[in-house]
């Protein structure tokens, strides 16, 4: 199963965009103009397609900035976020931290990472 292709197909149908516009590095909000209602639809579509539990807050990094705000000054921001988003690599979290000022950071590859992580968790359970 190619998770990227499956997600791309869902996004094409949901957001009415050309599949050529979507790569793993595409931003959902910045590039595809996804809105909150689209995220609700996307969440159930992913649940339906991959049969995994979907936590909207985690998947869409909804509380990311709140978590960052609450990291004590004494703690490294990278270390503070790693446990919050276990499906994201340290490298990706570092990228996100460097990208925060540019706008919403969620990318297609973050959805892929979440699905892979949930699928592994489900198999392990």
């Amino acid at each position, binding site marked *: 199963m190619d998770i990227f292709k499956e997600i791309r197909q869902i996004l094409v149908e949901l957001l009415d965009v050309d599949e050529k516009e979507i790569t793993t590095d595409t931003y959902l909000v910045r590039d595809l103009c996804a809105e909150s*209602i689209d995220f*609700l*639809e996307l*969440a*159930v*579509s992913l649940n339906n397609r991959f049969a995994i539990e979907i936590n*909207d807050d985690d998947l869409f990094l909804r509380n990311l900035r709140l978590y960052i705000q609450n990291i004590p000054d004494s703690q490294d921001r990278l270390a503070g976020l790693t446990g919050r988003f276990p499906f994201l690599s340290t490298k990706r979290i570092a990228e996100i931290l460097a990208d925060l000022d540019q706008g919403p950071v969620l990318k297609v590859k973050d959805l892929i990472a979440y699905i892979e992580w949930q699928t592994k968790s489900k198999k392990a359970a």
Partner: protein
Amino acid sequence: MTVCSGQDRFILLDRITQVRENTIVAEKTFAETPVWLGIESLAQLGAMHVRYANQFSRHAMLLIIEECGFNPGLELNGTYQLKGKRTSRSQYAYGYHLTALKNDQIVINGQFLFATIAYDDRFDQNRLQSHYERLFTCLQSDIMTD
């Protein structure tokens, strides 16, 4: 703005006859009723099940009707069985396949998407939570549950 539905009240479910983790069944008797009110009945049924699934702790609303089929010119007369089956879910959104049947024949059939939101200034918890819990209880007569 006043919205007039043409109904004495806007609860378009007479009785919930079965509720389980992923399914809900209800009845509604219509008299010369346009089909859109049947669709509204199905939406109310799905939203009721979403509230039940959340122990009434969040407000539920119809987000999208993804597809809905019925015969053009259909008018609803008599007692209909309304069935809902949850087909997908996330933390805040729920997909349902909802059908209205008369004499075991499907007359309305659709895929509906619902969302939940936290109670807030617009959706007052003190008023709405107890209202829907009471309504749900009232609609359960001789109900079957797991």
